[in-house]
């Protein structure tokens, strides 16, 4: 459990072909509390993936900095792990061996088998240890992705639209599953999505981003009691009010963006 602090974060990309500069994130300030389930929603292209890549240390900030537990990020490190939208599993490795991947790279083979057994039953993949990724459904593949990240026991877990490639039914099921699993572990979670339902179902706090260049527009507190996977929250007023609020905020963003592009 570590705090994630983002101070005046600006990320620019140089577009080599057009000799232009694209501002992906602009002076973004944010503090994610230790152990919090923090969700970020934003329109497509607003810089969500860029944000994750910066926290993880793959993209260098043009300005500002990212602090994990007070220490500035210098590059990838074992205190952070990522779950990817397209799973990013090694197709030649079995479920078990895929989950071992992170530990293997970090040279933490002592006690690895015990940890792997634990996370396998945590994500409910018992009996599938020897399967190859192509033998699994999308939902199960993402469980492998989650297990691989959890196995390295990160202090901060980052998920970049982890259910983006799933169908609506599986997606809902996986939301409940992930809430259940992540409530039993203790890391700080930063969860990116463009689904409003997902944000409301999962987040302790929800940041709504502006259309690019990305900034935090509003942070909303989610008062819906946990655990949410057991109750049918979708018919509750509190759920729908929050949902409508986020919807309105995102709609304003989209309209603002469209009016800019029509004036240009």
């Amino acid at each position, binding site marked *: 459990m570590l705090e994630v602090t983002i101070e005046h974060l600006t990320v620019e990309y140089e577009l080599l072909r057009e000799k232009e500069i694209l501002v992906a994130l602009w002076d973004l300030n944010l503090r994610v509390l230790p152990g919090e389930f923090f969700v970020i929603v934003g329109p497509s292209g607003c810089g969500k993936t860029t944000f994750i890549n910066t926290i*993880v240390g*793959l993209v260098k900030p043009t300005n500002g900095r990212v602090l994990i537990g007070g220490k500035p990020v210098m590059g*990838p*490190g*074992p205190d*952070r*792990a*990522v779950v*990817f939208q*397209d799973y*990013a599993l*090694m*197709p*030649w490795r079995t479920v078990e061996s895929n989950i071992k*991947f*992170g530990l*293997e*790279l*970090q040279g933490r083979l002592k006690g690895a088998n015990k940890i792997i057994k634990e996370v396998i039953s945590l994500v409910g993949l018992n009996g599938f240890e020897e399967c*190859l*990724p*192509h*033998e699994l459904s999308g939902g199960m593949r993402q469980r492998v992705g989650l297990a691989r990240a959890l196995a*390295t026991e990160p202090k901060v877990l980052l998920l970049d639209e982890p259910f983006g490639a799933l169908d609506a039914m599986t997606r809902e099921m996986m939301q409940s599953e992930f809430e259940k699993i992540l409530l039993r572990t203790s890391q700080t979670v930063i969860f990116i999505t463009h689904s409003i339902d997902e944000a409301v179902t999962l987040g302790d706090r929800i940041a709504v981003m502006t259309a690019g260049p990305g900034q935090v527009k509003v942070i909303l507190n989610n008062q819906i009691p946990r655990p949410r996977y057991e109750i049918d929250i979708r018919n509750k007023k509190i759920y729908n009010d929050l949902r409508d609020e986020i919807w309105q905020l995102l709609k304003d963003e989209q309209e603002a963006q469209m009016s800019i592009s029509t004036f240009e």
Partner: protein
Amino acid sequence: MQKGASVTDTATGVPPLERPLPVPTPLQAFWGRFGPTLITVINLSIFVNMWQIVQGSSDPLVNTRWIPAPLDIVDAIILNIKNGELIKHASFSGTNYLIGMAIAIVAGIILGILLGLNPIVRSVSQAYTWVGFCTPTVALLPILIILFGLGVISKIFLVVLMGFFPIMINVLNGVATIDPVLMKAARLFGANRGQLFRKITLPYILPWIMIGIRIAAERSLGGVIIAEIFGSSRGLAYMIAQETDKFNSAGSYTAIAALMAFSLIVLYGVDRVEQKTLSWREASKY
């Protein structure tokens, strides 16, 4: 579950049909397991028997100088094993082949990776690799003989040339298609350059390596034979030429059989490895 919905599926009161699992009879089970092998064995033995009857008679259909009877070939094989001729020639060809293939495999993999990793280097080198691949390498043999003489080196060099390009081109293509997401994932889990290579690049391109080796294995075997026919005092192809000169067709067929066996062993080996490495790649297409 929602209140308004109810279970309405098979509300006809008719119980669903029992569908028994088909249990194979012992005969079916046996046939399923050994049938294909049995057919091959029967098929081949009919063919060989007919061959023996036609060519082994006192009045053969074709002059036995061109096509000897199977039993005569067996006799010749036994004779050539006993007097050490077969081993002598086979080991010569085999050594040249294996050394050449080993060099082609190592060089093909290393160059394929080096050229494949960098997109600019890849596109610059592509033209040359295709020129290399399309050159009828055999035609270079006279030049190789002038350069290296009639000894072992020119022969091995031809094997290398024939095997190198298919391996390198396949490796190059494999490297070019590595999924960047896998690289990203590995880097995020802290992989250094060496680990990226060992844990992503190498396992990823293994199927391509095997495809390259399969093509190379067949081409290079041709290379061994041609190099020996051009000029040699040893080797299986030399043995064929020599025995044919002596009108001893059974002797030539002995060498041909040895070459077939050799090719079969190589292809079987490649097949075994390929099946293992290809399983994930073939299946993940669907």
